[in-house]
């Protein structure tokens, strides 16, 4: 299928540098000019609602609806917080947008701020993105100099300050309320919801938290119209999506496609199929928190609802492909090790459960598993789901449940044979 790229249009421009001049040359900041001159904030919110844009951070919540939750007459300041803390294993699309097309994000930030009445926005960039933070800083300086950010933007009455803040290395600071706590200078520990950030967010003020890719869509929606945008992809998962494809494929990388693409098409037509002509065994379709899919699911559409119906989720759009050299128990050990490392530690089930899950899987992978461990793992997962302040606990549990569901025989072999049947270094 040929698809006219939107967010990564710049990749077709040889020698593109992502500077403000380069961005403007391909039509950048036209949406901002148009919106500030011709549109009221409420109209912009309506347009984004009509576009059907759903959050690209992992939750897939309708963006315009979220903006609409901001109280119209609050005496408190309204904040926009940009989530650039991309940390979901397998995901590397926000990094690309930050490093290669930062002005698209900034234009989205100004438009979103104008729409919700925010005059101070915070851009939280993952601490490890050293180059990315540099690119954002350069872009911000350029935008301020040109008058796209600051006082009386483009001669309008709209003021906006954008603060760039770098994280300090925690996945949990990508959770929206964990991010807010971190931004406020505290430990990145998520808050109970309700209250939701739209009511009580940054400094307990009304706040919208949006992902970097989500905001990158806004200029295009406003310039070319929400109807055009809604025409891309399925009706309930509109617009282009960036899929980060990694693993045992010939051509790993970021692919911008409508969500009508199927998993089969994504892997075999776009990413070149399984490396070395081997056989596909398993696919994680939406980041490590998403339940695994197998060959039988290859024709699922990569939209939020189809993936949910197939027993998984759209998540962050990170597609990790595994061939038949892969030991699924080892995958479980690696995935659970991540959550063990990243749990913030507030909730008992997550703090202790992510550790227990990992230690058990590690033991099984190294041939010291017991019969009882398999059902124990399932019970652990059940006890970890739906009972904590944030969903990291669920994110740790659901994948393991899915590996046991689809590959239980592999686990049982590990226990019976007291060794990993795939040997050391399987799947590398």
């Amino acid at each position: 299928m040929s698809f006219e790229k939107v967010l990564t249009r710049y990749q077709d421009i040889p020698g593109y540098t992502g500077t403000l001049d380069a961005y403007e040359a391909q039509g950048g900041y036209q949406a901002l000019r148009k919106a500030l001159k011709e549109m009221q904030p409420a109209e912009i919110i309506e347009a984004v609602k009509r576009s059907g844009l759903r959050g690209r951070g992992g939750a897939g919540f309708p963006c315009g609806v979220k903006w609409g939750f901001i109280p119209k007459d609050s005496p408190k300041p309204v904040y926009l917080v940009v989530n650039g803390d991309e940390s979901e294993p397998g995901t590397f699309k926000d990094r690309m947008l930050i490093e290669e097309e930062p002005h698209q994000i900034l234009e989205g930030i100004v438009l979103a701020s104008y729409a919700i009445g925010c005059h101070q926005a915070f851009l939280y960039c993952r601490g490890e993105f050293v180059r990315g933070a540099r690119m954002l800083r350069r872009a911000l300086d350029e935008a301020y100099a040109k008058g796209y950010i600051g006082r009386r933007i483009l001669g309008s009455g709209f003021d906006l300050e954008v603060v760039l803040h770098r994280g300090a290395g925690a996945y949990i600071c990508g959770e929206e309320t964990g991010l807010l706590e971190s931004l406020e200078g505290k430990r990145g520990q998520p808050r109970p919801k309700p209250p939701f950030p739209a009511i009580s967010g940054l400094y307990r003020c009304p706040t919208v938290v949006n992902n970097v890719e989500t905001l990158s869509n806004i200029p295009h929606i406003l310039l070319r119209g929400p109807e055009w945008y809604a025409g891309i992809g399925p009706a309930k998962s509109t617009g282009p999506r960036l899929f980060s494809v990694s693993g045992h494929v010939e051509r790993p990388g970021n692919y911008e496609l409508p969500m009508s693409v199927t998993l089969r098409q994504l892997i075999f037509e776009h990413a070149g199929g399984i490396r070395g002509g081997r056989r596909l065994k398993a696919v994680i379709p939406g980041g490590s928190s998403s339940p695994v899919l197998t060959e039988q699911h290859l024709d699922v559409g990569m939209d939020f609802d189809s993936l949910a119906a197939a027993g998984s989720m759209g998540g962050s759009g990170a597609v990790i492909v595994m061939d038949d050299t892969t030991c699924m128990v080892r995958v479980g050990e690696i995935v659970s090790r991540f959550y063990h490392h990243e749990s913030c530690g507030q909730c008992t089930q997550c703090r202790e459960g992510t550790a227990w899950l990992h230690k058990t899987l590690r033991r099984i992978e190294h041939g010291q598993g017991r019969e009882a461990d398999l059902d124990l793992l399932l019970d652990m997962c059940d006890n970890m789901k739906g009972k904590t302040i944030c969903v990291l606990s669920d994110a740790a549990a659901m994948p393991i449940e899915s590996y046991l569901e689809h590959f239980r025989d592999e686990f049982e072999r590990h226990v019976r044979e007291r060794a990993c049947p795939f040997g050391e270094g399987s799947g590398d």
Partner: protein
Amino acid sequence: MPTLMINGVEIVTPGPMSILEAARGAGIEIPHYCYHPGLSVVGQCRMCQVEVEKMPKLATACNTAAAEGMVVSTNSSRVEKARRAVLEFYLLNHPLDCAVCDRGGECPLQDYTLKYGPGESRSVEPKVQRAKHKVLGPHVVFDAERCILCTRCVRFCHEVPKTGELGVFSRGERSEINLFPGKLLDNAYSGNVIDLCPVGALTSRQYRFQSRPWDLVRQIESVCPLCSNGCNVVLDVRNRQQRDELLRIRPRENPAVNRWWMCDEGRFGFGYLYAAERLRVAYGREEGGQVPVAVDELTGRVADTVRRIVQAHGEGAIGCVVSSRHTNEELFLVRRFFLDILRTPHLDYRVRPVQSEETDASEDGILRRTDKTPNSRGARDLAILPGQDGLDVKGMIAAAQAGRLKALFVFEEDLVRELPDLPVREALSRLDLLVTSSLVPNETTALAHVVLPALATAEKDGSLTNFQGRIQKIRRALAPPGACRSLAEILQDVARRLGWDLGDIEPERVWAAIGEQSGPYRGIGWKEWRAIGPQGLLPEELRAASREPRPERHES
């Protein structure tokens, strides 16, 4: 005033509150760790999860508002499974220290595990090892392995003394509570974290390895005597080697006085009860100096001398300074002895400026107050003050120095030390009779003809009135050492030898007389005193209650 159902019981809440608070108010237990009524709500431990109709997930009762029409279950099978799982998660790394842990026997982790937890471990993983018996400050020792990260201690230090010495460091399984660099846990309220800690992670250095809770023979409700706040306490007594020993003092909850807390001085500072210098026998002055004399002999000498002085110089040659460390009952009897029966007008309790200038105030904005005696308010309410033309404390010193005052009774005040600007030593040396009582010998007792060993607050029954005017009962937890006798008994003894009678001196019975006098305690007879509960009584409350119409009970 939402009405909700919890476990089929209808509960009408008096105002906005969480499900947990509504349940507590109705006597329904919802197990919890991180929640504490005196601290911010964090909803972290996940123990208090309950099932709420129409909510798909379990809700934490501590931070879910009780809403009109809510139907809550705290014991459905879903809740039971979730709760059992939380305990299982806690026990994964919790060390099996019960045999050597001070918390054993009074431990919410043990208690909830027995009631709600798994009976056996399913884990074969080695437990995480951490620092043990780490001294955090003068009073508290920490065991990081036992800690369940409820963060009550961290929140307490931030929110009550506002010293913030403790924090959580690292994250996830590696989370650990510790002191911030360069800090010690040495705020004036550090001991409260021992009560707050649901497990044996934070324990008392003073009480370490001293007892098991079931070995405590007596847990007496009383009041701390070290300042005018009157924090409500429990005195934990153990019998060891045929002797009763006070091992530990803990605060009792009283929303009006000390909420849930007490200061470290009151909590840990009871060593004075066992000080080696503590007077155990009475002393009388004889040729060679002060020698032990039987109390009966001394009361005889006192009575004789008093008779002689009254005959030669009149009642006005006798005065009395009585400390506001005494109970209301003792103060009343002192007043009756000196003002009513002996008929001298020279009586006073106001030794310190904070008492004479009535400047008692909060010392730290929390609990401690500047008046370091517990019953100045009681002394004022009972008019332990000079009678007509009577002398106050300073006046009595001056009169003693001038030779006009011949006898002075000084009960539990070291005037030499308290009044350094006055010629106290000189004045007291001129007296024909100086009768003192004290817990320990001091520069005032050194000058006395009679030194009586006093009872400490923990060794008597009675009541004290705190700075708010609240009458609070103290109860005897310990036998006094040696020949210490109550002031009431000694005064009655002297009175009888003089042909008088103080009447009933039992603390309860004294209130029959107090209630009949005019003043703030009018109307509080011994029946009313007996009805005073563990939270004390403000006289206004009693008068208001007697004015309110009583609810009627209609038997059908």
